[in-house]
């Protein structure tokens, strides 16, 4: 029977699609009797899914998902640099 420690490594390999079938069987047996590892497996899958959702929104248009914003002073500083580099000329 696998221990939680050995299962941890196998969970990680499984998430990367790198767990051979014979080890997958052992992992499944462990998960049947271990609430902790079962919960971790489910929650890690949810984390991966959330990260994927986050990634899809990151570049999707203009509004970030988080409340992270450039401060007005930073925006002004960046624009100032743009003016310095570009002048009024067409680029």
């Amino acid at each position, binding site marked *: 029977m696998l221990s939680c420690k050995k299962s941890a490594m196998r969970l990680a390999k499984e998430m*990367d699609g790198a767990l051979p079938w014979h080890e997958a069987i052992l992992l499944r047996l462990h998960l049947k009797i271990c609430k902790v590892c079962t919960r971790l497996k489910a929650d890690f899958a949810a984390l991966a899914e959330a990260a994927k959702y986050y990634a899809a929104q*990151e570049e999707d248009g203009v509004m*970030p*998902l988080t409340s992270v914003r450039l401060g007005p002073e*930073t925006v002004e500083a960046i624009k100032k640099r*743009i003016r310095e580099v570009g002048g009024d000329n067409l680029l």
Partner: protein
Amino acid sequence: MPEFSSQDVEGWVDECGDALFQYALTRLRNRAAAEDAVQETYLAAMRGIGQFSGRSAISTWLFGILKHKIVDQIRREAREEGANPWWSESDLDDLFDKKDHYKVLPREWSGDPRAEYQRGEFWDCFQACLGKMPKRLARVFVLRHIDGLNTDEICKVFKITSTNLWVMLHRGRLALRECLAVNWFKGDDREDS
């Protein structure tokens, strides 16, 4: 070939500066570094504007520039820092007791992230947790799950083995999961195994 004035470029700061900044902050974890990366992106855009075909959206083009800058920086830091974490990258021994049970049992989540996607505060918490994690753990998590790189690609960046990476990913997932348990899914008690 479209022509742009520096006023146009200033407008792009209002349009997608925040999105670029969030993207940079998630990966660089430091406000000043992320602000610099955004500024560098716009200046590089000014210099390279002749290469912008106008076929793709401005934001896509700007994101492309920013991504290159961030990848360069992550590579550079990975090279400079080398591996010297307080935990081992080769095993998970310190997380387990003599019977190979978790020393610290994971806290229960009181909910499911899927139900939180529409709440901006959840993503603030998600990002703050990534920011609090040890840097290399956060890096591999972001590269694997947000940027979608595969094992080989990440191993090359950090010059580590796949076993090292699985150890780090497991630690990273545990840390992120625990941080969300404490700060978002405030489950009250640790459950006995």
